[in-house]
């Protein structure tokens, strides 16, 4: 009897060979909840503080939950950011740039995968090289190049970079396309060719449908990464592409211009942490909404396309 109880307890705590027991489950949840909290801390902090009024901010007895919910920070942040304009610019720019990048990388990946290109090994080495080189190295000559064509200060540098397949982490997507286009039998192409289809037709009708997951992952992640890219954009496109992240970087200046205050310590008008965090939250809000709507696509696409790189 005693032994039976002991065995049952053991099975409960440590589990059988088939499934983990209570202890391992508790440990899993414990670590995940703890790590998840640390991980989400900045987001929770943002949401909590951005809803506080200035009295709650300085009151040390108010932790996490504001005494009264104040949307004042958000109203001011929306004005200082020029949120709606920024949203329009961000959506337009990210959408068109990732569209261009997806099209050009799909073509290039197809060419690399389905044809006997000369110097194939060299191209692969260069694709990896492009990934490894920090963008700050190529930034300055790119500036001079686009400056020479009078394109600095327009959105063209971003779009041309996308069209040339040299955007953020584009090498990864090119390799994903390569992998997808290499994986289906050559006979499919040949059958279509015999039926009299030209190369472009084969590409559109046969190859593209095979690579829908690659197209999805490229477009989605390009969208996110073009949205968050600021280093090249702020230098090359300047005032013509004031996306939300770029507006956030200039938040302090635009806030002070909009709400001038004589002393920075005043409680009423001055920029406080709540307004800053409201601005930050607003600049990432569109991405968070997209993420929540398309969460499965995001996570699964990384798994399915094997960015893992085997």
């Amino acid at each position, binding site marked *: 009897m005693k032994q039976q109880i002991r065995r049952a307890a053991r099975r409960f705590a440590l589990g059988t060979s088939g499934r983990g027991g209570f202890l391992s489950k508790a440990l899993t949840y414990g670590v*995940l909840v703890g790590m998840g909290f640390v991980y989400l801390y900045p987001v929770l902090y943002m949401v909590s503080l951005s809803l506080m009024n200035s009295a709650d901010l300085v009151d040390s007895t108010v932790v996490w939950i504001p005494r009264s919910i104040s949307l004042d920070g958000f109203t001011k942040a929306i004005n200082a950011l020029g949120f709606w304009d920024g949203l329009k610019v961000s959506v337009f720019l990210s959408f068109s740039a990732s569209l261009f990048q997806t099209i*050009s990388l799909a073509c290039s990946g197809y060419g690399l995968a389905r*044809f006997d290109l000369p110097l194939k090994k060299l191209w692969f080495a260069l694709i990896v090289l492009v990934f*490894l080189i920090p963008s700050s190295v190529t*930034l300055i000559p790119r500036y001079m190049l686009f400056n020479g064509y009078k394109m600095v200060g327009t959105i063209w540098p971003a779009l041309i970079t996308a069209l040339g*397949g040299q955007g953020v982490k584009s090498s990864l997507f090119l390799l994903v396309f390569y992998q997808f286009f290499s994986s289906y039998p050559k006979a499919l192409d040949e059958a279509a060719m015999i039926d009299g289809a030209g190369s472009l037709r084969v590409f559109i009708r046969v190859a593209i449908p095979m690579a829908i997951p690659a197209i999805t992952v490229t477009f989605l992640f390009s969208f996110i990464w073009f949205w968050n890219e*600021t280093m090249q954009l702020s230098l090359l496109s300047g005032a013509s592409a004031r996306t939300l992240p770029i507006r956030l*970087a200039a938040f302090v200046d635009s806030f002070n211009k909009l709400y001038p205050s004589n002393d920075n310590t005043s409680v009423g008008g001055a920029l406080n942490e709540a307004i800053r965090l409201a601005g930050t939250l607003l600049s*990432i809000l569109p991405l968070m909404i997209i993420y929540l709507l398309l969460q499965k696509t995001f996570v699964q696409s990384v798994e399915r396309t094997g960015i893992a790189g085997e």
Partner: protein
Amino acid sequence: MRSTSHLVRRRRMTGLAFFSPWLVGFLLLTLFPLVYSLVISFSEVRIKVSGTELSFVGLSHYRYALLQDASFPTKLMESIFLIATGLPIVLVFSLIISLLLNQEFPGRSFYRLVFFLPVIIMSGPVLTQLVNETDAMKLRLDSGILSQYLRMISPGRGQGRLFILFMDNLVRTLWFSGIQILVFLAVLQKIDRSMYEAAAIDGATGWEMFWRITLPYLRSTIVINTIYTIVEMGAVSSDPTNVKIMSHLLEVNRPFSYSAAMSWIYALAQLLLMGLATLLLFKREGRRAQ
């Protein structure tokens, strides 16, 4: 005979035509800038109405950056410190999380959602706001046993400064693990279950299985994640060295060239880190294989 070789050549040209968007983009937007930035980093640049003039000045920009500039060496050390300490944290953290997420349990997809979130929302300006301008990334460690302990093990002022930098950036560092977690997870799911079953029949514990089956299987993935982490951390625009490089870009008396020199120093440092980390990982692996 002639017609086949003609066909082969034609097919090759078609292939090149498909490949050309990337190729042209590479030549124009990466290769040319790469060479040109190397050239201007060794030159003095003068901007005139007729165009830019270059005159060779050798290593003087590099020497200035490393020996005379008051802040560049510090910023560079800070960046390297952040990457070098962040790298093992990111790797171990993403491995642990992916091992946990590889089990079946309710709420699994929610946690996957949480740990991938930073990939979506992270950008230079957001990190600047959260790390430098507000306290959003700083876990409160003022009180409690942990902070007492930490204070005890971090004597000296120089060490203390790095330590504070490390603690202030801990959450920021963890935020760089989103993609790596999913990459580990994708590879973990491909491991053949029967290997574990066979090992279990032979009486191996979970701990042994992790070291003997899982970890060797993940070797190349670890290397890939290492390189990815370094690239990602070095590219973010709020990185101290990147901020410094950008701030000197349009300097009046030496436009472009000084920034170019600094960016090459930083790029070499990153490549060196990648090489070092890869070497370290492979060396350890070699020892185990013997």
